[in-house]
């Protein structure tokens, strides 16, 4: 595949990836810090080149329901927003999960609660990984840490979404959305033809011929026995994801006495803190969850048997730390550090927190 070098913002990379990955439709409503996604799409006019629809809806509630409609007929459809907008979409997300519809939702998180601030944050971890909407459901959650991953995870997102018939969330934040880095893009993947759609999404409601039953897309089932059965099916799917789809990266962990667990932009900051720490003789490494659901429980459990302590670094008051503690099962101290409300912690603060909360506390 020919690789072309570009320099782009994370938000623009999502938009470029949508066009290049054969996306059929993007529906969105502008909100800082992710407005560049639709801005870029509108400037690129993909409808003239690939036929991809780009539509500004009247609200986030509307855009997520447009996604529901597009996904129901087997199209590759997506939306993006930031925290307050994603909150408005929660009803749509649980409906998508209930009706088992594939879609990509990118959340470029900003500080909350409420309208909060436009600066970066990672305080939507709970919302993304623990439901957000009602009912027993899971989004598949990918956490990009680079502009390249913002791009790559759109491609990966389609793969997962259609393989499992499940909505995929790309959970980034204002920093990854706004930073400009090198990006290598590949060839254009054409949009699916009608034949390909029928092959790749045979369950979709693409028009009923006389010789088969209706394909019904719904999350409603009033017969509780059937609804329980449907729930069993969903749970089996989530367990299969946990079995097969966990993704993570480790950096400098071979000789580590301590590890950071951090995702997204905090993982980048933690990497710098590792450099600073190692200059001082502190052997620290990083485990970076790439999938937040399914969460890398097993590798964290393994590390908890080997290291003297774990510090989670997230731009929140401490959310992922709960999952890390569950995985570590008190085999080693697990503490949290993070600035929040739109403030980004510095590498020095992260290292200081490791020294104060883990190393000296022992």
């Amino acid at each position: 595949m020919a690789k072309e070098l570009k320099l782009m913002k994370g938000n623009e990379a999502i938009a470029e990836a949508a066009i290049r990955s054969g996306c059929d439709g993007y529906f969105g409503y502008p909100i800082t810090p992710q407005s560049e996604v639709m801005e870029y799409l509108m400037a690129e006019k993909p409808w003239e080149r690939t036929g991809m629809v780009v539509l500004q809806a009247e609200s986030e509630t509307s855009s997520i329901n447009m996604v529901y409609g597009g996904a129901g007929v087997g199209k590759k459809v997506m939306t993006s927003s930031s925290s307050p907008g994603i909150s408005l979409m929660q009803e749509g997300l649980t409906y998508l999960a209930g009706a088992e519809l594939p879609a990509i939702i990118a959340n470029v998180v900003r500080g909350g609660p409420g309208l909060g601030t436009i600066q970066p944050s990672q305080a939507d971890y709970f919302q993304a990984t623990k439901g957000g909407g009602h009912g027993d459901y899971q989004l598949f959650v990918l956490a990009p840490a680079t502009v390249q991953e913002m791009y790559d995870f759109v491609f990966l997102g389609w793969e997962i979404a259609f393989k499992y018939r499940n909505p995929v969330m790309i959970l980034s934040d204002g920093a990854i959305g706004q930073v400009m880095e090198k990006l290598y893009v590949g060839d254009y993947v054409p949009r699916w033809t009608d034949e390909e759609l029928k092959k790749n999404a045979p369950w979709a409601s693409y028009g009923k011929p006389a010789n088969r039953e209706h394909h019904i897309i719904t999350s409603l089932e009033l017969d509780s026995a059937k609804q329980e059965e449907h729930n069993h099916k969903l749970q089996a799917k989530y367990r299969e994801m946990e079995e097969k789809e966990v993704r993570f990266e480790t950096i400098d962990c071979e000789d580590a006495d301590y590890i950071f667990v951090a995702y997204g932009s905090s993982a980048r900051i933690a990497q710098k803190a590792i450099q600073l720490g190692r200059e001082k003789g502190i052997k620290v490494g990083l485990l970076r969850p790439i999938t937040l659901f399914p969460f890398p429980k097993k590798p964290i459990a393994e590390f908890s048997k080997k290291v003297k302590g774990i510090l989670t670094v997230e731009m929140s008051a401490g959310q992922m730390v709960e999952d890390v503690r569950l995985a570590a099962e008190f085999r080693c101290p697990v503490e949290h550090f993070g600035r929040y409300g739109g403030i980004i912690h510095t590498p020095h603060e992260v290292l200081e927190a490791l020294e104060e909360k883990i190393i000296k506390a022992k």
Partner: protein
Amino acid sequence: MTEEIIIAGFGGQGVLSMGKILAYSGAMQDKEVSWMPSYGPEMRGGTANVSVIISDQRISSPIISQFDTAIILNQQSLDKFEKSVKPGGVLLYDPNGVINPPKRTDINIYKVSATEKSAELGLAKVFNMMVLGAYLKIKPVVTEEFIEKGLMKSLPERHHGLIPENLKAVQTGKELVEAVRTL
């Protein structure tokens, strides 16, 4: 080599685009680069800043709080970032409107009167390129050839006619820079 830079000034001075041209030039020269703007309410009038990293290695954090070089274009930014220059680092500033000049004695301080010069030449639009030239004279992290390539890549084609003027401004900046106090 890793060079961590903050460029700070008023919105409208071309702070973000100067950083972008530097980042593009670095990328063209096969370096790893990152460009992280302050995109907050500052953008809506007031101060603007961007941190740029150019490195031979994979860049860990694009978010940094201490800098090898600070390029400062107004008093507010000087007050904010003078303390964030690493000991032994570089502070380059435009003295226009600066009442309280930098005081640190453990860093290298340079000035470039780019506001004055660009106004005198009637070239206010390439003011930021003069500042960039001054910086490249102190720290030649990218070569001239790649600045031209960076400009070609970062400017839309309809503006490519302006590239010679921009490159001339880089030259002017190189000639204009003065050492105030060096280690």
